[in-house]
């Protein structure tokens, strides 16, 4: 078995079009996944999904698993690779779990946002499967609450639906700039504004609402 299988490149065909269809080596994919995971972990709101990376990594995992099944049980390489696989699997499932948790917590808010996005023709943040899950979850909550209020004389009140649970986008996050960013506006409580320039690799503790767009368009990452 090739011991360096995880380092092998994949998808050699693909052009450098505007969409990020650039070929990544497996190591790069891993790095992207780690970054996506950390961003998702620390951002208070849900971020655009990275299912292409997830699927790529899962493909790699099952590929290596297949190769491993040919290796004898007592081989040292097997346990080394197995450990690495477990780590990868943890990474992916933790990422997906974090997203699910956010979807559940802010379900009505996220559904509303997604609807607005698709009306405006923007790309959805949720993948189709996640969207299905979110819809089912929202409906089941609706159903449960309506069931509980059956005793109500007259019309069952529905005002609670207007009180959405929203993520606190003013929470503070540690951010690291990936390239030079100029003119980050920082809004202070007393309506004052401050402009900061960030150098590549510099780190800053900042309120998420000021830098959310930088995370989403991949100019910086959370740490």
């Amino acid at each position, binding site marked *: 078995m090739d011991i360096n299988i995880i380092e092998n490149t994949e998808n050699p065909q693909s052009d450098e079009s505007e969409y990020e269809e650039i070929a990544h080596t497996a190591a790069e994919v891993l790095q992207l996944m780690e970054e996506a995971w950390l961003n998702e972990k620390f951002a208070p709101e849900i971020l655009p999904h990275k299912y292409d990376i997830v699927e790529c990594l*899962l493909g790699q995992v099952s590929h290596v698993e297949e190769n491993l099944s040919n290796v004898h049980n007592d081989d040292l390489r097997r346990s080394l690779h197995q450990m690495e696989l*477990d*780590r990868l699997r943890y990474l992916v499932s*933790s990422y997906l779990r974090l997203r699910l948790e956010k979807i559940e917590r802010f379900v009505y808010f996220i559904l509303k946002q997604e609807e607005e996005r698709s009306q405006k023709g923007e790309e959805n943040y949720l993948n189709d499967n996640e969207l*299905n*899950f979110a819809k089912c979850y929202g409906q089941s909550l609706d159903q449960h609450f309506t069931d509980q209020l059956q005793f109500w*004389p007259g019309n069952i009140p529905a005002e609670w639906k207007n009180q959405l649970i929203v993520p606190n986008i003013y929470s503070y996050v540690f951010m690291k700039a990936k390239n030079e960013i100029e003119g980050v506006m920082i809004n202070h409580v007393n309506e004052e504004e401050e402009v900061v320039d960030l150098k590549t690799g510099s780190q800053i503790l900042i309120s998420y609402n000021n830098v959310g767009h930088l995370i989403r368009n991949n100019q910086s990452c959370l740490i």
Partner: protein
Amino acid sequence: MFGENACSLIRELDRNRGSLPPYNNEILGEVEKEICHLIQQNEADDFEAHEDSRVGEAVDYTATIRTRHAIIQRNLRCLLAYHYNRLRCLRTMRWEFGSILPPDIKANLSHSETNWFSKYSSMLATYMRSIGDDGGVNLTIDLNPPKALYIEVKCLVDYGQYELSDGSLVLLKESNRYFLPRAECEDLIRQGVFQHIVN
């Protein structure tokens, strides 16, 4: 006093964080009765007010009606909070115990909560099946970052034979120690069959 029962529901939630106390039918019934009662009174007062205004007498009911309305809203909010937080707790248990709940927890659920749980289980399963190309990913394992491939566990009950994923059989006996692959143990640790021995 009005609103006290609803408040005690919330206090009950707060006392039992992370666990699921029995569904409090009794107090919920009281709160529901209180709400119905207040709504009836408000309607009656509303009717009176209309009557009075026709006759020309001016008794002001606004303050009482508003107060009652505020109590109703507060009770409603407490009711919903109670149910919502129980669902959140139930949801956590889905992740901990899998789709089959231990009987002692099941006994604490209301009928509609049991329904919700099976609905949640099935939507989660549908979602997990849909990830990736080949048959999905089980997100309920690998809950903690892996540190070592094998872990040492102590068996707490006489479990009998257990088949590992590579097909070999292990006989699990009470108070024996085993050195097994972590992935195989996770489920059994959560079920309380194994205890993880941390050095």
